[in-house]
Structure formats: C-alpha cells, structure tokens
C-alpha cells in the first residue's frame, strides 16, 4: 500500500523547507561582502548619497554623479536626494550638505545644470576635464559571501560623453543681490497650510536652484532653507509654512533685499467663509 504513495512527500518536504528558508532569510540579518552600494544599510546609503552630492559640487560632472547615484538603487534618486535634504534641514543638520543635495536633485531634474565648481584649496594645476569620465554602472551579483576578485567584472572605461547643453541653469550665487519683483497673496482653498512661496529667477527668467533663503521671526531666531527641494514645482522654488499670529522677515541670498512683515493673509471663499491664504514672492537677480 505504502509503495504506491509515490514521492509526493519529497515535494512536500521541499516546499516546507523553502518556506522556512525564506522566512529565516527575512529574519536573519545578512551581511554582504565585496558588495555594491545598493545593498548598504540605510544610514550608510545616506552618507554615501551625501558624499556624492558634496563631490558633485567639486567635480560638477552630472554624468558621474548620476552614475554614482544609480549605484544606490533608489527607485527615484531625485526624490531620495530631496527627502534627505529636507530631513537634514528639519533635524538641524549641515546646511552645506543639504544645499549640495538640493543642487544635485535640481541637476538631475534639469538634466544639465551648470554650477561653478568649488575651488581646490591646494590650487592643483589640474581640473576635471570637460569631456567627462563616466563610471560604468557595474552589473552586480549580490552574493552572500562572494570570494571573487573585487575588480574582476568592473571596468572603468573612460567614456567621452558629449553632454548636450540645451538649457543653462544659472549659477546659484549666494551673494547675489536678489530683488523682490512681485509679491502677491495666494487664495487657494486647496492649500492645506498657509505658505510663503518663493520663486527665484536669474536675469533671463531661468529658475535658480540652491539659493539660500533666510527667514526670521522677531525674538524667535532664524531659519534657513534652499530653493531646489521641490524640483517638481520648479528648481527655483522653495516654501515655508507660516503659523497664525507670526510675522516673518525674509531674505533671499546673503545680500538680497529684506522683505518684512509677512503674515498669513485672510482669504474668503465664494460663500464668504474666511480661510488662511499664502504669499507668493518672486525674486530676480538683476545682474
């Protein structure tokens, strides 16, 4: 009788084993060696991403920065950059770091962003070439304990990429004397929170990312944020959430015009209901 049962028990055992194995793999921490950045733990990914952004300010090589970001395996690198920049600002982290992240996010959004590279303090007589090297994005086999040679399947081919420059995004010059060219109230009942919406443009009306904006409240100190954190709206856009009863002063750039006494405007719906509005400020660099 038992001879006729066949070998289904083997299949049953195998299925049970696979289920147990998958469950175990999800519970047991795994440590990869000789791996790629996409498998880093989140804290290290943040650090790596931040370093990519900082290095971008030195190299100003969009292709390379993008190739490096792709290594992290983010579904949307731009969103990851923006989220990290916002998180940094919210937690009182480094302003420079968040600015670098915002600029890189804007660079990805625009495709090509031209910024001035940070100078080398050692005055090296060399500079990153215009014809950029692109780090190949290696195909990664995340094996648990790989013993293969570290560089076996990775080649660093210096690819000459002719970067198209259809649009030129202006330089985010912190010291530029941005002037207020338009101030208006925004009565949009769809906006859930009252905002100060800031748009920064250059002389040719191109939005400028990475511009420092200072906002101060009397006796309550100052906060800093940057344009470029919402590239889906505009690379030159930034906003700040207002609180009822507060009066704000705002400056764009370090030498920009101070806009004073900003507070939540009152708006009315068609049926006469009052709701808090927002303020829209447009700044331009006249130089």
């Amino acid at each position, binding site marked *: 009788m*038992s001879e006729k049962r066949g*070998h289904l*028990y*083997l*299949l*049953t*055992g*195998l*299925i*049970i*084993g*696979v*289920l*147990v*194995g*998958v*469950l*175990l*793999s*999800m*519970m*047991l*921490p*795994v*440590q*990869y*060696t*000789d*791996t*790629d950045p996409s*498998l*880093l*733990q989140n804290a*290290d990914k943040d*650090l790596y991403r931040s*370093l*990519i952004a*900082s*290095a971008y300010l*030195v190299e100003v090589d969009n292709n390379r920065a993008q190739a*490096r970001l792709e*290594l992290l395996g983010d579904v949307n690198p731009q969103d990851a950059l923006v989220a990290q920049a916002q998180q940094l600002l919210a937690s009182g982290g480094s302003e420079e770091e968040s600015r670098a992240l915002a600029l890189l996010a804007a660079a990805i959004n625009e495709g090509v962003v031209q910024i001035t590279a*940070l100078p*080398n*303090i*050692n005055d*090296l007589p*060399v500079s*990153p*070439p215009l014809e950029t*090297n692109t*780090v190949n994005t*290696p195909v990664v086999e*995340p094996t648990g304990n790989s013993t293969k040679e*570290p*560089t076996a399947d*990775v*080649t*660093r081919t*210096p690819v000459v990429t002719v970067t198209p420059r259809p649009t030129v995004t202006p330089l985010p010059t912190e010291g530029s004397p941005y002037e207020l060219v338009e101030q208006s109230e925004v009565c949009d009942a769809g906006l859930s929170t009252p905002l100060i919406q800031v748009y920064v443009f250059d002389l040719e009306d191109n939005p400028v990312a990475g511009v420092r904006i200072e906002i101060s409240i009397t006796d309550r100190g100052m906060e800093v944020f940057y344009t470029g954190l919402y590239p889906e709206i505009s690379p030159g856009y930034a906003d700040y959430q207002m609180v009822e009863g507060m009066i704000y002063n705002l400056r764009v750039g370090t030498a920009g015009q101070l806009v004073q006494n900003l507070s939540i405007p009152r708006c009315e719906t068609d049926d006469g209901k009052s709701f808090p509005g927002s303020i829209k400020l447009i700044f331009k660099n006249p130089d």
Partner: protein
Amino acid sequence: MRISRLIGFIIAILLGVAGGLALGWRYLPSQVTTTGLQDLRADYQADYVLMVAEVYAADGNLENALTLLKEINPENPLRVVQEGLLTAQQMGYETWEMRYMADLEIGIRSQVGQGETP
C-alpha cells in the same frame, strides 16, 4: 522503508531551507541588512575615497575626511586611502583623480607626522 522515506523527507526539507535562504537573501536583500561601507567592493571603496579626496581638496577639512574614511576602517583610515590609490591605479583613474587622492594621503600622513593618530 519508512526510515528511508523519513530520511528523504528530512533531506528534502533541508534542501528546501537552503534554497529558501538563498532565494530570500538573493531577492529580498534589503529586508534586514547590516552591510556597511566597509563591505563595499574594492572598486567602490576607491570611488568613495576619491569622493572624500575631492571634498577634502575643496574644504581642506581633514577631520571630516578622516571621519568619512573611518566608516570603512575605523582603525586605519590612511590604509583606506592607500588601498584606494592602488585600486585606482589598477583601474586607470585619471591623473587629476590620483592627485586628489594622493593629496589626501599626504594630508593624513602629515597629521601622523605631527604626532596625532589619524
């Protein structure tokens, strides 16, 4: 016969567990990971060192550079740079990239020369 079936069953389970672990670690790697920068492959570590060197070249902040390098080797950040230089050489990095990295190495060495432990 029963014993042989039992043994077969157990072997099937063990094979299944091994396969399940491999599947899970291969396709669900981000669920739980403790992989750090020190686990990066040598070529990625070299690129990391290059980025640190570039930032150092711009801001001259050796402390910051050391902090970043210690993420790979807390005991000996200088070694991280040296290994990065070797890998960079093998992979044909550009001269200006090698110089950035070499400058970082010199910076760390000079600190060692002043009696400070990097």
